[in-house]
Structures are given as structure tokens and as C-alpha cells.
């Protein structure tokens, strides 16, 4: 993609520099080492199974249904959730992990649509009508009960957004303590000059709002119900 325009920058930044006595912009600013790092102490020493317990507990706080299963039982668990949500139509990401987990074939047997990265109009239209959206979680944060989706290429932003129900398949190995580990991972990619996904979503349960008398309403613009399925051997 060609470089974008930058307009009015010089006068704007010169004004700021005069006020704060800043140094010239071409000299890099050294970030200080912060005096405390409390984020590193959260859930320190927890192993993967303890993190799953934290995640399970947190799911109660965020109105999310929690399931734990194995690769062999995964299709059965998805069927169970679909029945619970009284849903039949599915949209899922164009993601090789569906095939690797041997569930692509199962999904194809249902009323399921694989997100088409080359067809904006139709993909959005189908996702809008689908009753369930299914994605894998790229990184899972135990503390907050968050699935992190690195949305690019075949991983459409709409899959986890437009349907009324959302299912996240969580490989056990994707579970980390908290946001710190996810931002460290992204920071490392930036440092190495690698691209990061154009849309990184930190999703914590279904959508909600407390805008009416501070009463929590679960299900506003995004999904109304959400399920996390932790897969032990993924």
C-alpha cells in the first residue's frame, strides 16, 4: 500500500516542542526503566492447569459459558453448545487450525460458511445472518477471561462480532496469565519489524452495556451469548 499523507505536522510539533522544551524528533527518546513492574507479579508461578481454573472462575464474572474438552470430543462439545443456543447456521474463520483439529469436515456437514477473504459483501452478509460465529483464540488471558484474536487475512473481524452467539475454541497451550504476556508478544513482533494484524481484538465475553441506570444488560451490538471451549490436547 502506498504511503499515506501527513499534513500540518511540522508546525504542530514545533509548537509542542517549544512548550515542553523537547528534543529534536529525529533523536530517539530512550524509554526509562519503570520503577515498578506489578504486572509481572499477577498469577506468578501458576501452571497451565491452575490458569485454566482461573479462566473458568472468571467466565462466571463475564457471563460466558465454559467448556473443557479434548480433540476427540470437540465436535460433540460444539454440537452441545449449538443445541444450547438453539442455533443451526454458522460462520467460521478461514483458518487452517479448523482443518488441523479435524473439525473442518464436521462443520462442512452443517449449515456452515467459511469466511471468504476475497468477498467482502457476501462474507459480511452471511455473517450477519449466521446464528453462531466460531473462531480459534490466538492468545487466551486467564486473569480477565479474554480471547485475543489476531484478525487479518482469513480471520475476518465480523466472524466474532455479527452473529448473536460466539464460540471461541481455546487451545490449552494458548492460555497465558494476563494481558501483559499478549502485549509482550506483540511488542516483540514490532521490535523485529514484523507486521502485526490490522485488527487485534481482546474479547472478554459477550457484549454488554450499563448505560441504562447502571444496570448491566448482556448482549448489545455484538454477541448476546458467548462460549469458551478449552481443548486440552491442542
Amino acid at each position, binding site marked *: 500500500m*502506498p504511503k*499515506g499523507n*501527513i*499534513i500540518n*505536522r511540522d*508546525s*504542530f*510539533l514545533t*509548537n*509542542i*516542542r517549544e*512548550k*515542553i522544551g*523537547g*528534543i529534536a*524528533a529525529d533523536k*530517539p527518546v530512550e524509554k526509562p526503566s519503570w*520503577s*515498578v513492574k*506489578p*504486572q509481572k507479579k499477577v498469577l506468578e508461578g501458576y501452571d497451565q492447569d491452575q490458569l485454566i481454573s482461573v479462566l473458568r472462575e*472468571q467466565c462466571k*464474572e463475564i457471563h460466558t459459558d465454559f467448556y473443557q474438552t479434548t480433540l476427540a470430543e470437540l465436535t460433540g462439545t460444539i454440537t452441545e453448545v449449538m443445541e444450547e443456543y438453539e442455533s443451526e447456521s454458522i460462520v467460521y474463520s478461514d483458518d487452517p487450525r479448523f482443518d488441523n483439529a479435524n473439525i473442518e469436515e464436521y462443520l462442512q456437514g452443517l449449515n456452515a460458511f467459511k*469466511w*471468504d*477473504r476475497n*468477498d*467482502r459483501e457476501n*462474507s*459480511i452478509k452471511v455473517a450477519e445472518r449466521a446464528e453462531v460465529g466460531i473462531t480459534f483464540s490466538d492468545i487466551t488471558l486467564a486473569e480477565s*477471561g479474554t480471547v485475543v484474536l489476531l484478525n*487479518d*487475512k*482469513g480471520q475476518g*473481524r465480523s466472524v466474532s*462480532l455479527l452473529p448473536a452467539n460466539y464460540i471461541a475454541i481455546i487451545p490449552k497451550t494458548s492460555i497465558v496469565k494476563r*494481558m*501483559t504476556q499478549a*502485549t*509482550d508478544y*506483540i*511488542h516483540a513482533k*514490532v521490535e523485529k519489524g514484523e507486521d*502485526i494484524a*490490522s*485488527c*487485534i*481484538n*481482546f474479547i472478554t465475553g459477550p457484549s454488554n452495556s*450499563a*448505560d*441504562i*441506570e*447502571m*444496570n448491566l*444488560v448482556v*448482549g*448489545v*451490538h*455484538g454477541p448476546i451469548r458467548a462460549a469458551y471451549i478449552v481443548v486440552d490436547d491442542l
Partner: protein
Amino acid sequence: MPMHIGEKDFKKRVTKGLEDDFMRGAVRSAQGRLQDKRATAADELGDWEDWRTLGSEIRSHTIEHLDYYLHQLSEKVAELGGHVFFAETGEEANEYIQKVATEKEAKKIAKSKSMVTEEISMNEALEAIGCEVIETDLGEYILQIDDHDPPSHIVAPALHKNKEQIRDVFHEKLDYLKSEKPEELALFAREKLREEFLSADLGITGCNFAVAESGSFALVTNEGNARMVSALPKTQITVMGMERIVPGWEELDIVVSLLTRAAVGQKLTSYITALTGPKQLEEADGPEEFHLVIVDNGRSKILGTEFQEALHCIRCAACINVCPVYRHVGGHAYGSIYPGPIGAVLSPLLSDYDEYKELPYASSLCGACTEVCPVKIPLHEQLIMHRRKIVEDEKKSTLSERVVMRGFEQLVNSANLYRTATKMAPFLTTPFAKNQLITKGPGPLKHWTHARDFPQPANERFRDWFENRQKRGEKNA
């Protein structure tokens, strides 16, 4: 909506707030819930004070090197193919946004919550060129439907309305026929707004935090509307106040963790959406064209002054949620889209003392705001600095106050005058007193006795009492 809202006169706004019993009830209960949730979330972390220290260090460093980080941010955004416009004033920002809307022939614009766009009256500017702007945050949507009622809180803008009022507004304007249950009201808004998201030509978002190292923007939301606005329309404009930036992802973790806890007591909100440039090849959804508008609009006036820390604010509203003054008068009384303690600090800085000279006095200086601020802004000390400036530098106190203070100065500078005056005080006040209490004071005392009684000065002055007590045998009294 401009920054200034409601009645011009401060006292009239306050009176209106004090007389609105429903609003006061709503504010009391909301404050209670939000305070509890914040305190629980902070306790759970265990070392909340360390988190605050870190937040404060990050914000100080970033603002001290704002030029560097804004430069880095704009380079990264442009490398990714996005366009960056630096706007010194609200007008410049609006002109640019109008130009983009015109070029894209945008008729319908879906917008997620943004205080800075309120501050610069962006909606009005877009409506002036024939665009329809739809607020998609549930609270903002309710206010927009209700003939553009101004927001009264920076996180929960419709805090002053009850569910029955919202039901009636939906009924009157949108033919809503269901009950006042929040679930039914929200479902109705979901259905109405879904059509708008899908047909909008342009999406506009605010920005909680920009990340300089990668040219990214984090939107911190619960409803999912900001995700819609950044996934479905083909063009996206993000408007940010120039101070809303952190150096890198490590710092984003900290400020987001502080924001969600301090604002609503959540470990993370339902959605933290980090957007980096327009959509890339082989992506179906997301904006094909991305514009970033960085707004100064008075912020640079604050840099390098004793108020610089006000720019550390991460807009969590924790100070508003604990403020006893806000509790009584409500958000609209401040006359600014930024109410509460941070509003009382920021509004006179972004505008001027002519417009907001009363706000630094709308505080009991109890310091609760400073105590809860997740980035340690010394809010109540900044209010005192404002008061000093208003009186000493700007000479904006009232004539009567200046006369009284001058008189007081002379009185306490002369021993004779002081002695005479304090001896006279009980006699002079006798006509106004009943049972040693003045309930309807004269002149300047009137404002005090309007709210509470004033004790009549005792017949014996303290110094006389002290000297006489030995004679009266009250040595150990």
C-alpha cells in the same frame, strides 16, 4: 455539541441540578455502585499503589516527550497507508473531516463514543454539509434521540436519565412499544442500529490510546459498537486528543488495566480493539481507507505550565464517581462536557477563566479525587492553583470579594482595629440572631445562611476568656 453546555449562568445551572430530585437519586446510586466496583477491582490486584505509580510514570514520560511520540505515531500510520492530519483547532479538524466526507460522498456516518468530537462540535459540522451522523454508543444514542440532550458523565453519558424516561423517548421518537426493562430497550437499540452499521458510508471513532511504536489505536468498549464502526464502513476516521498516546504495547497494557478497573471495576472491558492502519490485502472487512486526525484545540496551552499533569488524564471518571459536589449538582451543572473534578481542572484550561472561573470553586477540596486517580493527578491541588491564579493573576474575583478581603487585610493588620471589631461583633450581630444562631444573615453572610445556620459570635472573645479563666478558677477547664 460544543464543550460548553446548558445555561450560561453557573448559579442557575447549579440550582437546576439541586432541584432535580430524580437526577440526584440516579447520580447517588450510580456513584455508589461505581465506587464499590472500582474499590473491589483495585483491592483484588493487591498492589494497586504500584500500578498507580507505574501509570503515573508512563503518563509523565509520554507527555514530556509528546512531540517525539506523535512524530513516531504519524510515521507508522503513514507507512501502513493511513493519512494523518494534525489539527491545531477544532475548526481545522472539522474542515478536514468534512473534506473526507465530501470526497467519499458520505451520506450516513456511524460514530462510536468520542469526547473530543463532542468538544469540537464535529457532528454539527458534518450535519451542516448534509451528512446524517448516528451515535452508536447506547448512552449517546439515547441522548441524540432525545433532541441532543448533553452528556452528564464522560463514561456513562446518560447517567442522569431513568429507564422510564428512556422508554418514553424511544416511544415518542421511534414508536417503541415495549416496556422500560433495560434488556428490552437495549435489544430495540441493537436492532435499530444494526441496519445503520451495515449501511453507513463512513465510520468515525475516538481513541482511548494510540500506540506510538506500531501506529495502533486501542478502543476500550463494552457494547461492540466501536468494532462495528471499524469493521463495516469502507472509510474510517479516528479522532484523537493529542495527549492520548503511549510509547508502546508494554505501556498500553498498564493504562488499559488501570482504565477498565478505575472506570467500571472490570479486569478488561468486553472489547479492547487495537487497530493498526487500514485493512491489508487479503482481508475482507475493515476500512479500505483510514484517516487519523490529531487534535490540539487548546491542549498545547497547558504544556509547560503548572497544569501539565492534567494532560495525564486517561478519562476513567473515577474522580467524578467519588466527588461529593458532583453527587449533589450532577454533570450538567458544570456547563462543560467534562464535569467533575477533572472537568473543573480541564475546562478553564481548554477554554478560559471568563467561561469557567466558577468551576475551581465547585469543590470541597476533600481530595477524594486525587486519592482515586489511577495516574495520580493532584486534582484538588490543581483546583487550588486555579483559584490562586483567578484571584491573584487574573483579578477575576468579584468586586465585593475584593472589598471584603481588603477590609479583612486592614482589620487583621491593626491590633486596635482587630480588638475593637471583635468586641463589637456580638453586638452587631444580635439583631440577626435567635438562640445564638443566625439563620438569615445580612450581606455576604446571606450565601452561608442560605444553606446552614451561622453561630452568633460569643459575648466573650477567646483572648478574654483565656485571660479570665484563672480568675474564675477554671484553671483545669
